[in-house]
C-alpha cells in the first residue's frame, strides 16, 4: 500500500467518530435531499405531469345509450381533430350503501357513484393509476376513486336483488372520468330496470390548448352521433383548472420544505466535512513534515472524506427512495394525482451534488491546510489560535455563574467560523420547526374555514333502504329537492334539551352577470358564523339582501365589498349587496352566502335540506344525536354526529410536515453533534487538565452543554423570526396561487408563548446535538485525556 493509501486508511479507521459523523451527515443529507428533490418534482405542475403520465383524455363525453348505438359512438373516434380515443365504455350512476361488515353503521348511504365498465385500465387514453389493491376482475368487484376502504362491501339497495360488490382497489384518473370502475360484464347488473347505460368516450385531441380548441373537438365528435345523444362532456382544461386551484394551496408549502431540506443538506454536509478536515490541521502538519506535498495532502483528505461520505450517500439514496414512497403517495393524495416514484434523475443529481459538496469542502479545507508550512500547520493545528475567544473567556469568567458553565460559554468563540456555521445550522433548524408549526396551525384553520362545518350535529334527509335516493348534491345547473318545513324542523331542534345554536342551509343556484355557469347560493335560516366561517373583509350579513361572497366570485364579477350585484334565479332578479368577503374554496369559490329570506321572493319554495346544530357545553353529543334523530325521523330527516372537517388531505399534510420537520431537525442536530465533537476533541487535553484539577464528570457535561447554550439561543432567536417571516410570505402566496384571500385568522397563528417556546427549540436542537460529546467528555479518563495529542 502506498503512503497515501496508508494515510487514508488509517484516517478513516482511527478517526472513527469523524468517519461515522461524515457518513451519518451524508446519509441524512442525501435522504433529505432525495425527499426534498422528489417533493419539488412532485410539486411542479402536478396535474400536467400526472395527466401526461396517464395519457389523459382532453375531452370525455357521455352519450345517451338509448339514442346512440355503440357503433355510432365508437365511430366518433374518427371525427376530425381526434388524435386518439378510447371507448365506448358503459356508464351507470348508482347510489351504494355500506354493507353489513363495514366499520361505519351498516346501511349508511354513500354519495352517488358514476360507475364505468372498463376491463383494462392501463392502455390507451386515460391510463387509470391504481393506488391501492387491484383492478376488478369479475362481477361483484369494484374499484373506487375515493371513499370506502378496500375490502368494504357496498350494497346497491335501489336495484332489484340488492346486488353487492366488494371494493378491491382504489384508483385515480387525472382526467376524472369516473368515480368507480367495474368490469364491463358487471354493468348490466348495476343498471336500473328499464334504463340503458350511458356510453363514455375518451378523446385526445390534436388541438387542445384552449377552451375553443376543446369546444371545436366536442362539436366534431357530437356531429358524428345522432342529435341529442350527448348527455354531457368534460374538458381537461376544467379538470386542470380545478386541480391547479386545489393544489395551488399546497405547492408553496412543499416547495418551501423541499428548498429548506436542500439548504440544510448542503449546510450539514459542508459543515461536517470542512470541520473534520479543518480539525486535522495538526495531522496535516505532521504529514507535510514527513514529506507529503500539498497535492498529496489534498488527495489524502479527499479520500478520507469521500470514503465515509460515499457509504452515507449510498445508504441515503436507498433510505430516501424508501421514505419517498409514503411521502409521495401522500403528496399524490394531496394533489389528487397518480402515485409517482422518485424520478431517477433526482437520485443522480442528488448523488452528484452530494459528492461535489463533500469533495469541494474537503478540497478547500485540505488545500488551505496543505499550503501551510509544516511548522505553521503543527502550531495552528494544536489549538485554536491564541487570542481567539480570549475576550469571551475573560468576560465569561466574570459572570456570576458556576465556573464549568462560564468555561463552556466561552468555548465556541475560539472558532468563529465554526460558531457561525453552528448558528446557521440552528437558525435553519429552528426556522423549519417554526414554519412547520405555523403551517400546521394555518392548515388546520384553512381546513376549518374551508369546510366551515364545525357543528357537532348534522341533520339531513334520510330514506329507508329501497326508496329512490336524493340524487347528487346541488351543483351548478341542478337543484336539490326541498326539505321539510324549516320552522317545524327548527322547532324540533330547539325543543331538544342541550341544543346550543342551530341553522338550516337551503341550497339553490343563481346566475350572476359576468360569471359563466351557475353560482351556488347557500341560504341560512339563522346565523351560521359560529360554524367556522372566516371573513377576509367586511362583516356578516344581518338583513335580507345582504350577502357574503368568496374571493373568486368577487374577482370574477369585478366587485368589491359594499357593491351591489344582481343574482338571477329562474330569470327573477335578486339584487344583493356584498357586505363581506368570506373564505371558501368550495365550488371553486363560485358561491353566495345569505339569509334564507333574501331568496324567498325569487324562490318561494326554497327550504333547507340540511341543518347544523352546536350542542351546548357539557352535553353528551352521542346521547343528544340519538334523541334528536328520534325527533326528526318523522320529518324525513336523520341526525348524526357531524364528521365534516376530518380532512384526509389535512391529516396527510400534517404527517408530511411532521416527517419533514423531524428530518430537518435531525440534520441540524447532526451538524451540531459534529461541531461539538470537533470542539470537544480539540480541547480534550484542556479537559484532562480540568479533570486533573478536580472537575467532576457532571461538571464536564456542564462545560460541553453550556458551550452550545449561547448559539442555541441566538440561533433560536434568529431562526424563529425567520420561520415566522417565511410563514408570512408563504401563506399569502398559497392563497394568491389558489386565487383566494386568506382570512387573518389563518395568518395569525403565532402567540407570544408559542414564539418563546419555539425560540427555546434552538436551544433544544443544540443541546440534543451536544449530548453525545458531553457524555463522552464525562466518561473520558483523565490520564487518557492528558496523554491525547
Amino acid at each position, binding site marked *: 500500500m502506498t503512503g497515501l493509501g496508508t494515510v487514508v486508511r488509517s484516517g478513516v479507521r482511527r478517526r472513527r467518530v469523524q468517519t461515522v459523523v461524515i457518513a451519518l451527515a451524508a446519509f441524512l443529507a442525501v435522504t433529505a435531499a432525495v425527499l426534498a428533490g422528489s417533493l419539488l418534482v412532485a410539486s411542479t405542475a402536478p396535474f400536467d405531469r400526472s395527466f401526461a403520465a396517464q395519457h389523459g383524455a382532453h375531452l370525455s363525453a357521455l352519450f345517451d345509450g338509448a339514442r346512440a348505438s355503440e357503433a355510432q359512438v365508437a365511430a366518433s373516434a374518427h371525427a376530425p381533430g381526434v388524435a386518439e380515443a378510447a371507448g365506448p365504455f358503459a356508464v351507470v350512476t348508482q347510489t351504494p350503501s355500506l354493507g353489513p361488515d363495514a366499520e361505519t353503521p351498516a346501511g349508511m348511504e354513500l354519495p352517488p357513484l358514476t360507475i364505468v365498465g372498463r376491463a383494462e385500465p392501463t392502455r390507451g387514453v386515460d391510463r387509470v393509476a391504481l393506488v391501492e389493491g387491484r383492478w376488478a376482475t369479475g362481477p361483484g368487484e369494484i374499484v373506487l376513486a375515493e371513499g370506502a376502504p378496500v375490502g368494504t362491501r357496498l350494497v346497491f339497495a335501489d336495484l332489484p336483488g340488492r346486488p353487492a360488490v366488494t371494493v378491491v382497489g382504489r384508483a385515480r384518473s387525472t382526467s376524472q372520468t369516473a368515480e368507480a370502475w367495474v368490469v364491463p360484464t358487471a354493468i348490466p347488473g348495476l343498471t336500473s330496470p328499464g334504463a340503458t347505460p350511458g356510453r363514455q368516450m375518451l378523446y385526445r385531441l390534436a388541438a387542445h390548448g384552449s377552451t375553443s380548441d376543446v369546444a371545436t373537438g366536442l362539436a366534431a365528435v357530437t356531429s358524428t352521433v345522432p342529435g341529442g345523444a350527448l348527455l354531457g362532456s368534460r374538458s381537461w382544461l376544467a379538470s386542470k383548472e380545478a386541480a391547479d386551484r386545489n393544489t395551488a394551496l399546497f405547492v408553496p408549502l412543499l416547495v418551501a420544505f423541499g428548498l429548506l431540506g436542500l439548504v440544510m443538506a448542503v449546510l450539514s454536509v459542508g459543515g461536517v466535512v470542512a470541520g473534520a478536515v479543518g480539525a486535522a490541521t495538526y495531522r496535516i502538519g505532521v504529514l507535510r513534515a514527513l514529506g507529503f506535498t500539498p497535492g498529496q495532502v489534498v488527495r489524502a483528505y479527499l479520500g478520507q472524506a469521500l470514503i465515509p461520505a460515499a457509504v452515507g450517500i449510498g445508504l441515503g439514496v436507498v433510505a430516501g427512495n424508501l421514505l419517498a414512497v409514503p411521502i409521495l403517495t401522500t403528496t399524490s393524495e394531496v394533489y389528487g394525482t397518480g402515485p409517482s416514484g422518485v424520478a431517477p434523475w433526482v437520485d443522480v443529481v442528488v448523488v452528484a451534488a452530494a459528492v461535489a459538496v463533500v469533495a469541494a469542502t474537503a478540497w478547500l479545507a485540505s488545500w488551505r491546510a496543505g499550503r501551510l508550512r509544516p511548522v505553521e500547520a503543527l502550531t495552528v493545528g494544536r489549538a485554536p489560535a491564541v487570542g481567539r475567544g480570549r475576550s469571551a473567556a475573560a468576560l465569561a469568567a466574570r459572570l456570576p455563574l458556576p465556573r464549568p458553565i462560564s468555561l463552556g460559554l466561552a468555548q465556541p468563540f475560539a472558532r468563529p467560523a465554526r460558531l457561525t456555521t453552528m448558528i446557521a445550522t440552528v437558525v435553519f433548524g429552528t426556522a423549519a420547526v417554526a414554519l412547520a408549526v405555523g403551517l400546521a396551525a394555518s392548515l388546520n384553520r384553512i381546513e376549518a374555514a374551508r369546510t366551515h362545518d364545525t357543528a357537532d350535529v348534522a341533520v339531513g334527509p334520510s330514506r329507508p333502504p329501497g326508496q329512490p335516493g336524493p340524487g347528487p348534491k346541488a351543483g351548478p345547473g341542478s337543484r336539490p329537492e326541498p326539505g321539510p318545513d324549516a320552522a317545524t324542523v327548527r322547532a324540533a331542534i330547539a325543543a331538544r334539551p342541550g341544543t346550543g345554536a342551530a341553522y338550516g342551509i337551503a341550497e339553490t343556484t343563481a346566475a350572476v352577470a359576468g360569471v359563466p355557469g351557475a353560482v351556488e347560493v347557500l341560504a341560512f335560516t339563522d346565523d351560521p358564523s359560529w360554524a367556522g366561517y372566516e371573513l377576509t373583509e367586511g362583516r356578516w350579513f344581518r338583513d335580507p339582501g345582504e350577502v357574503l361572497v368568496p374571493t373568486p366570485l368577487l374577482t370574477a364579477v369585478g366587485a368589491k365589498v359594499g357593491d351591489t350585484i344582481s343574482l338571477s334565479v329562474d330569470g327573477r332578479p335578486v339584487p344583493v349587496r356584498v357586505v363581506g368577503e368570506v373564505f371558501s374554496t368550495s365550488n371553486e369559490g363560485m358561491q353566495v352566502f345569505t339569509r334564507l329570506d333574501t331568496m324567498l321572493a325569487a324562490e318561494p319554495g326554497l327550504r333547507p335540506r340540511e341543518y347544523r346544530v352546536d350542542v351546548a357545553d357539557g352535553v353528551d353529543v352521542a346521547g343528544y344525536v340519538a334523541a334528536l334523530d328520534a325527533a326528526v325521523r318523522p320529518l324525513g330527516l336523520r341526525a348524526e354526529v357531524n364528521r365534516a372537517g376530518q380532512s384526509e388531505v389535512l391529516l396527510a399534510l400534517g404527517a408530511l410536515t411532521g416527517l419533514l420537520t423531524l428530518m430537518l431537525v435531525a440534520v441540524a442536530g447532526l451538524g451540531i453533534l459534529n461541531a461539538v465533537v470537533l470542539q470537544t476533541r480539540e480541547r480534550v487535553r484542556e479537559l484532562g487538565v480540568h479533570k486533573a484539577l*478536580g472537575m467532576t464528570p457532571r461538571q464536564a457535561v456542564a462545560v460541553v452543554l453550556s458551550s452550545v447554550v449561547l448559539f442555541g439561543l441566538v440561533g433560536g432567536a434568529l431562526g424563529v423570526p425567520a420561520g415566522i417571516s417565511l410563514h408570512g410570505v408563504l401563506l399569502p402566496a398559497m392563497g394568491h396561487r389558489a386565487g383566494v384571500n386568506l382570512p387573518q385568522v389563518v395568518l395569525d397563528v403565532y402567540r407570544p408563548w408559542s414564539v418563546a417556546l419555539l425560540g427555546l427549540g434552538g436551544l433544544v436542537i443544540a443541546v440534543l446535538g451536544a449530548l453525545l460529546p458531553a457524555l463522552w467528555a464525562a466518561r473520558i479518563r483523565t490520564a487518557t485525556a492528558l496523554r491525547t495529542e
Partner: protein
Amino acid sequence: MPVIELRGVCRRYDAGPPALDDVTLTVEPGEAVAVLGPSGSGKSTLLNLVAGLDRPDAGTVTVAGVRLDGLGEAASARYRRAHVGMVFQFFNLLDDLTVTDNVVLPALLAGTSRTEAHRRCAALLESLGLARHAAAYPGRLSGGQRQRVAVARALMNRPTLLLADEPTGALDSASGEDVSRLLTELNAEGQTLILVTHDEILAARCATRTVRIVDGRVHSDEPSAAARPSAGAVR
C-alpha cells in the same frame, strides 16, 4: 500513619509488559519523595495512580485514608480537589484564561466562593512573586513564571499532596533552579511532595527520599542528601 500507601500495585497497558509490577510503597506526611527512573520505567504511571488519574489492575492505592483503586470518575475528581495539587512538565495552563483565572479555577470547581478564591489566589501570587502578572495571559510569561503559576494553581486548594511531573523538564536552567527552590521551600513548610523526574540533580536538591523505578519495579528506596535552604513563607 502514611499519607500514601501502595500495596502490590500492578498496571499494564494493552498487551505490553507491565508499566508497574507489584509495587509497594509508603510515603509519610511532610516527606519529599523523588521518583527517579529512565523513560518508560513506570514513574508517570505511579504518579497517575497516586493522583487518582488512573486505576491499578491489581493492588491497592490509599492516599490520605482514601482508597483510590475503586473510585469512580466523580469521586476521583472530588479526591483530587481535596488532596492533590498537580504540576505538569508542560504547565498545562489554559491559554485563553488569565493567570488569576487559571489559578482560581480549582477552587471554583470545588465550590469555593469567588471572593475567597480570589483572596487566596492574590496571596499565592504575591508569595510566588507573580502578583504583577495576575491579569496577564500565560502566553506572555517566561517558562519559569508559567511553572510558578502552575504551582500556584496546584496549591490553590491547599492540597495534602503536591505531585510534580518533571516540573523543570521544559525549563531553562535558571528557571529550573527557580522552580526547584520553590518546591524545596514548600516542602520545608510541611507540604508533602512527590516529584517524578529523571533529573538526579533536581532530586538531590528537592527530595528527602529517592525511589528508583526500573521496568515497573521499585529498584531502590533510600534517603536523599538534600540540602535545605531556609524556607520562605509561600502559603
